């Protein structure tokens, strides 16, 4: 069975010559919940963009066994839903319904089925009665949930989330953890918040300066009191399970 995500010797350099990702080799199995952790500027967001085919460097990126190229980008993005860091970038339509329907409509799904998918996605994230709301009328927590609904309606096998817990209060963060824990999809979550990563991930990939410095079981990496401070991070506040 093909891996959900596979990167083989992937490197990417910014236009100004700064290396962003260097020789990344990584594979993530279907059904895993992997946390991409690392300090600011480590390359987490760029790596997520590479997985969705937005960043083209050297080496290979495969999604569900399919190597990303210009011809199969649409197919890749049907399998992999990318949720950006700022929900205001993700929610660009005048109403929540239109936003959640945007992906399925572009996939060619019929109108009636789109309506059913929108209703299901909004129900999953707890916004069932807000379909007609304008995104600027939602709270930060609701915007985050809505951004996830825009991906869920496309029924992807893999979901990437960039700093999904950013600007959320503790209650909304708990709600988000509950929501993400219950999703059956493969999740790849970039975060600087180790408590968030510890609550969700079964696997942790530590990035620093564009390189993978540790990869393994979340329990082993997140609570490594030598490794984490070395890379500007801290161990989670909650005790190791």
């Amino acid at each position, binding site marked *: 069975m093909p891996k959900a995500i596979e990167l083989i010797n992937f490197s990417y350099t910014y236009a100004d010559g700064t290396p962003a990702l260097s020789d990344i080799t990584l594979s993530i199995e279907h059904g895993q919940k992997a946390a991409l952790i690392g300090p600011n500027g480590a390359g987490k967001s760029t790596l997520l*963009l590479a997985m*969705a085919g*937005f960043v083209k460097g050297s080496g290979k990126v495969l999604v569900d066994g399919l190597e990303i190229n210009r011809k199969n980008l*649409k197919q890749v*993005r*049907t399998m992999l*839903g*990318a949720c*950006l860091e*700022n929900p*205001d*970038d*993700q*929610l*660009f*339509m*005048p*109403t929540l*319904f*239109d936003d959640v*329907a*945007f*992906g399925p*409509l*572009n*996939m060619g799904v019929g*109108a009636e089925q*789109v*309506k059913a998918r929108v209703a299901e996605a909004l129900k999953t994230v707890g916004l069932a009665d807000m379909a*007609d709301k*304008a*995104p*600027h*009328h939602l709270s930060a927590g609701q915007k985050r949930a809505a951004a996830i609904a*825009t*991906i869920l309606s*496309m029924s992807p096998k893999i979901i990437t989330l960039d700093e999904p817990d950013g600007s959320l209060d503790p209650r909304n963060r708990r709600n988000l953890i509950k929501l993400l824990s219950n999703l059956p999809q493969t999740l790849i979550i970039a975060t600087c918040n180790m408590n968030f990563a510890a609550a969700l991930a079964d696997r942790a990939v530590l990035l620093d300066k564009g390189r993978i410095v540790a990869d393994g079981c979340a329990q082993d990496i997140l609570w490594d009191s030598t490794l984490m401070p070395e890379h500007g991070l801290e161990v989670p506040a909650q005790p190791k399970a």
Partner: protein
Amino acid sequence: MHHAYIDKFAYQDSAIHRLDGRIKFLVVLVFTAVVISLPRTSPAILACYAVGPFAVLVWAGIPLGFAVKHILVISPFVLVLALSCPLYDKTPVTVLFGPVTWRTSLGWMRCFTILGKFVVTMLALIALVSTTRFNDLLAGLQKLALPRLLVIQLGFLYRYIFLLIDRAHHLLRAKAGRKLRNLGVKTELRLAAAMLGSLLIRSIDSAGRVNIAMQARGFDGNWRTISKLQIRPADLLFAAVAACFLLALHFLIRPVLR
């Protein structure tokens, strides 16, 4: 920050709110065209035309103070135009207002006509945007064959204008927090230019990220939406009432009040 400036009352529920956006848009369009094309006219006739949008606002439960406030906000631009009329046209005229006779100039008559038409058409426009959700209006405009690109642009404008206003407020607050003395006009202008530049760069960045979000969801340049618009008997009745109102004013009231 919570915004509800443009569509503050559009999410209410009333018979007017439930009407199809296309019908309301077309009615307001025709009404505005009729009012603008009126020849130099008496305030009494304009007051009769104002009854239409006034009735819609009252029926829809839109506070009149809200409409007046918005008219006052925009009025300076029209006031400049209107108040220039008495300066260049001083031809004397006599106005009969019932038993009252008033001697004035043609310029002042033009001035009052411009202001009157402005108030009446603005009332109609406010009635439209206060009773129609912006997305319904956009969907209606698209159905009415307005260029799709323009509709998309309007949609993005509506979606992101609030964020832009927020960002501008944040910048102004950051400036106010550190501006502890009078900086003088030259420095203030330089700061304003820097802030505008910052807003522009952030907007361009934002546009790039929105583009990524769109492509991530399969956008290929074709804009696809599900239209929920449907013309019902109530919409046709509203259009008929509006048409009767305009025809009655044109053929019955105007000849009497002329």
